[in-house]
């Protein structure tokens, strides 16, 4: 009986000495220091493996191991391992993102015609201060600030760290500032807004030495913005001999071309899908 008791006591005593254990908090917020407690005795190696780190330190089993906040800035799964003379033991824990207070802001396109409905895509990716994706829903405010126009804003709540909005481009050409804000953080992008297609395209003709000079009025879009120089305007002359088309880029707001015309002819003008007025001229003798 005495022998049996000795054996049982020795067995449990051996167990209590040999089994090193490691205890970690179940959840940690990024950038927060923690203490990992261990049991056992003797010299041991402590490993902390995270998404962007894999560190090894010498520790005393049975002591509390402090882990600095800068070792826990990356959100994700961490493994703490303690290897003592009796083997290795491990525990997992998660580091969760901190509060959202940074943004990555993607805006597309960088150049757009005025008044394009839902033409601008704005996507905000919400991060915490350590650039982890902040997955908790957070309010993001998008704004569009066109030159000489009142800013317009729209609020959206992020989902899985992403908030997005489609915006209609402003009525006036020129650079427009687009912003996304969360808390005190904001990001600005600039979208160049250019005139839309020409509107009310009109031509006039005057005689010159070699025929007719055909010239447009200053070319504007329907909101009155000047269509940019370089936009191609097509002049088409139709007479008894057939059709002739000349493509001319707009220069200083107008497009003009000299056309040698014999007899009666019709002249039409177009730019992209927009057509203008038609002229009838009579050249030659």
């Amino acid at each position: 009986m005495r022998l049996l008791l000795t054996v049982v006591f020795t067995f449990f005593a051996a167990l209590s000495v040999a089994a090193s254990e490691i205890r970690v908090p179940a959840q940690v917020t990024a950038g927060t220091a923690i203490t990992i407690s261990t049991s056992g005795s003797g010299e041991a190696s402590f490993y902390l493996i995270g998404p962007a780190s894999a560190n090894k330190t010498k520790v005393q089993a049975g002591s509390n191991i402090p882990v600095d906040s800068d070792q826990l800035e990356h959100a994700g799964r961490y493994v703490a391992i303690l290897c003592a003379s009796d083997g290795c033991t491990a525990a997992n824990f998660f580091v969760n993102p901190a509060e959202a207070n940074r943004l990555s802001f993607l805006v597309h396109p960088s150049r757009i015609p005025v008044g394009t409905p839902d033409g601008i895509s704005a996507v905000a990716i919400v991060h915490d201060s350590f650039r982890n994706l902040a997955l908790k829903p957070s309010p993001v405010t998008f704004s569009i600030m066109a030159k000489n126009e009142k800013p317009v804003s729209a609020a959206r709540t992020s989902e899985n760290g992403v908030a997005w909005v489609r915006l209609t481009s402003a009525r006036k050409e020129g650079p427009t500032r687009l912003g996304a804000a969360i808390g005190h953080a904001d990001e600005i992008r600039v979208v160049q807004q250019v005139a839309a297609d020409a509107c009310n395209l009109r031509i006039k003709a005057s005689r010159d030495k070699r025929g007719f000079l055909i010239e447009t009025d200053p070319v504007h879009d329907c909101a009155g913005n000047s269509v940019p120089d370089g936009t191609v305007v097509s002049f088409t002359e139709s007479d008894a001999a057939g059709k002739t088309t000349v493509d001319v880029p707009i220069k200083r707001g107008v497009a003009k071309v000299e056309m040698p015309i014999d007899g009666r002819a019709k002249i039409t003008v177009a730019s992209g899908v927009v057509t203008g007025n038609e002229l009838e001229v009579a050249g030659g003798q």
Partner: protein
Amino acid sequence: MKATALRYGSLLIILSILLLGVVAYRLRATADDELPRVQLNADNIGPRPIEDLTSKTVQRDYALAWQTMEQAVSENKSALLDGYLTGLAKEDFTKRVDSQIKSGLHAHYTDRGHKLDALFYSPSGDAMELRDHAQLDVQILDGGKVIYDEPVNAEFIVLMTPGADRWLVRQIQATNGEKP
């Protein structure tokens, strides 16, 4: 006569064992080179629908990204990350490899597959967010000694962006699976 038969028999057995060894080695090498299995479910993607070709490309490139990440932490070679990772993902894994080298550690992953749920595809097609349910066997080794060996069912939130000819993993973050 009996002795000769015995000699040839022994020789045959030794040759068979050698042959089996070579075959087993070759099979393992092939398995290591295999791409991880990736299944993509894009039923709930929005606001932009995913094109067929993009869907296939994302699956292939995500598998290649995991293959290179696993090789990088196994062989401690951060240059392997250049192909399919960019931005924060590349930065983080490079730091991980650097600190593994410093601590004399390396990790071995046996990839048992990824189930991807596409969550978000931006209207202009310049960013995609996915949730990955991954099954992995993770081993961590200090020198040649295994200090950790565990099967892991992990969940990741992944941000991918298009590069010149492929989709790149820009950010990958393990989550505890809880709804935020």
